[in-house]
């Protein structure tokens, strides 16, 4: 297994005590921590180069613009897009999905059309489609989740073939189950039927190699804050041909071609979808995060996450009354585990763990329908990233044993 423990030194936040114990941060699926290199990039930007982009001709503005657009090209390469023009900067996954659900859906959905989604989507890739369907008179149909936490692929195919399906949306890696969906296969089926596809990569990018052209999706979304980048920045990838047919979204500076009081004309993508001053420092920070991750190697990070989660799943079996959602080992999964404990509600368990220095998350993880599917109100979740260690996983299991004693 790749040893990344020396990388912990890059993360200032990890070296603190919580409740008299060393902090063990197991909530990276909610938001990752930031390495010194990313924080430094922000500071450098604000101390040397800060200015508004695109509209200036002075030195700082030129520097800011150059760095900003360089990150667009970097992101394109990072996710295997054909061109930097296919990379739209957003606040995060949620905004990316909503952009598509508003612009694409309003333009292409007709009453009676069908959107196919799944039973394991994050609210951010679920509610926007419910709202879009309501607006357009379309219907959302859901692919069931099987007991082992995988999608019912036969049902998915059948739904696609029912006709009237215009869009398929699917999470790449589930934030509650860990399930890695076969998105390339699913998108191939959809493409063959002329169905547009969106993949929610919030838990995939930065954890495993992602190549949007290999996946063959039309849209792909992710958040910077989950992959060592600052909060407030994310990416919507859109295939050039699809973006070319979409009307504008927000009106404002940057996205216009020419404005008169009688009406206006608009630029092409990506500018067309980026009205107003963007989160320039956020973009610079995203670039630094990608550099950081690629400096380690996404394959290495992936292998480390796999080792860690598989070992943890084994150890969790020793905890009485503990039930893990999602694919049983040794099936590959995202480096996270959500579980319920017979004797303790997630709130109580997370509170307990917190007093031992562990940062877990408890609740529905923004997947209420999935929780209902598995008959739980919520679960507790431990999620790993490159800075977590086997020792930390061991400590998690130890604290869970203690919690069982405390609450039984």
């Amino acid at each position, binding site marked *: 297994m790749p040893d990344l423990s020396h990388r912990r030194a890059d993360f200032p936040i990890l070296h603190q005590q919580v*409740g*008299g*114990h060393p902090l063990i941060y197991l909530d990276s699926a909610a938001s990752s921590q930031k390495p010194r290199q990313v924080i430094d990039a922000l500071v450098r930007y604000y101390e040397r180069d800060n200015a508004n982009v695109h509209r200036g001709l002075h030195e700082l503005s030129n520097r800011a613009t150059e760095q900003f657009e360089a990150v667009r090209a970097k992101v394109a390469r990072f996710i295997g897009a054909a061109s930097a023009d296919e990379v739209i900067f957003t606040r995060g996954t949620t905004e990316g999905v909503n952009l598509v659900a508003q612009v694409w859906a309003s333009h292409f959905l007709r009453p009676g059309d069908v959107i196919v989604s799944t039973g394991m989507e994050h609210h951010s890739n679920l509610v926007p489609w419910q709202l879009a369907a309501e607006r357009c008179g379309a219907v959302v149909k859901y692919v069931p989740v099987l007991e082992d936490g995988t999608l019912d692929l036969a049902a998915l195919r059948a739904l696609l073939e029912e006709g009237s399906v215009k869009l398929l949306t699917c999470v790449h890696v589930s934030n509650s189950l860990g399930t890695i969906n076969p998105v390339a296969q699913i998108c191939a089926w959809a493409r063959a039927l002329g169905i547009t596809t969106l993949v929610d990569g919030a838990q995939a990018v930065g954890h495993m190699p992602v190549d949007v052209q290999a996946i063959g999706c039309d849209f792909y979304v992710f958040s910077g804050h989950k992959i060592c980048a600052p909060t407030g920045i994310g990416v919507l990838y859109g295939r050039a041909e699809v973006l070319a047919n979409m009307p504008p979204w927000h009106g404002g500076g940057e996205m216009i071609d020419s404005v008169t009081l009688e009406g206006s004309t608009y630029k092409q993508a990506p500018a067309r979808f980026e009205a107003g001053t963007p989160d320039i420092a956020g973009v610079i920070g995203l670039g630094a995060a990608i550099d950081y991750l690629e400096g380690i190697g996404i394959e290495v990070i992936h292998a480390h996450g796999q080792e860690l989660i598989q070992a943890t799943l084994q150890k969790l079996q020793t905890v009485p009354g503990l039930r893990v959602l999602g694919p049983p080992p040794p099936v590959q999964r995202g480096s996270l585990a959500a579980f319920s404990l017979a004797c*303790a*509600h*997630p*709130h*109580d368990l997370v*509170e*307990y763990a917190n*007093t*031992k220095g562990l940062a877990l998350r*408890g*609740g*529905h993880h923004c997947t*209420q329908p999935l*929780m209902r599917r598995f008959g739980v*109100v*919520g679960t507790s979740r431990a999620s790993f990233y490159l800075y977590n260690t086997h020792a930390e996983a061991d400590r998690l299991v130890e604290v869970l044993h203690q919690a069982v004693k*405390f*609450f039984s």
Partner: protein
Amino acid sequence: MAAEDAALRDLYQQVILDHSRHPRNQGRLDGPDCHHARGHNPACGDEVEVWLKTGPQGQIEDIRFEGQGCAISQASASLMTLALKGASPEAARRLMADFHALVTGASAVGDAEALGNLLALEGVQKFPQRIKCATLAWHAAEQALNQGTQNGRSS
């Protein structure tokens, strides 16, 4: 006992663990003069429902609850039913205000004695994120009581 265990023991006193494991007055009420309201915590999805039967003077003749939630919310609901049963609307509202003062620490508790076992929930003060858990059933009970006495929201 380590310091964090002391804090934990403050939050999870034995009476709380006991009531969370064995909640009293679970169930529903049905019939005339029965009022019902629902409390929901969107952050965690927890839900508590409260039923309450009022007598001729508006006093709480019976009270039941159902729902899922953490030890704090379950114990709080269970202890609440015991404290509210038989109370006049005025006494009930005083108790609600005092309980709120107890768990938030925002103001002084008027009648600590009336709170009785509910005093065990004072530890919540040190865990502000849990105030919503402790008050979930109370908000529902207040709503149900307002329906019963039809005099709007008490404050």
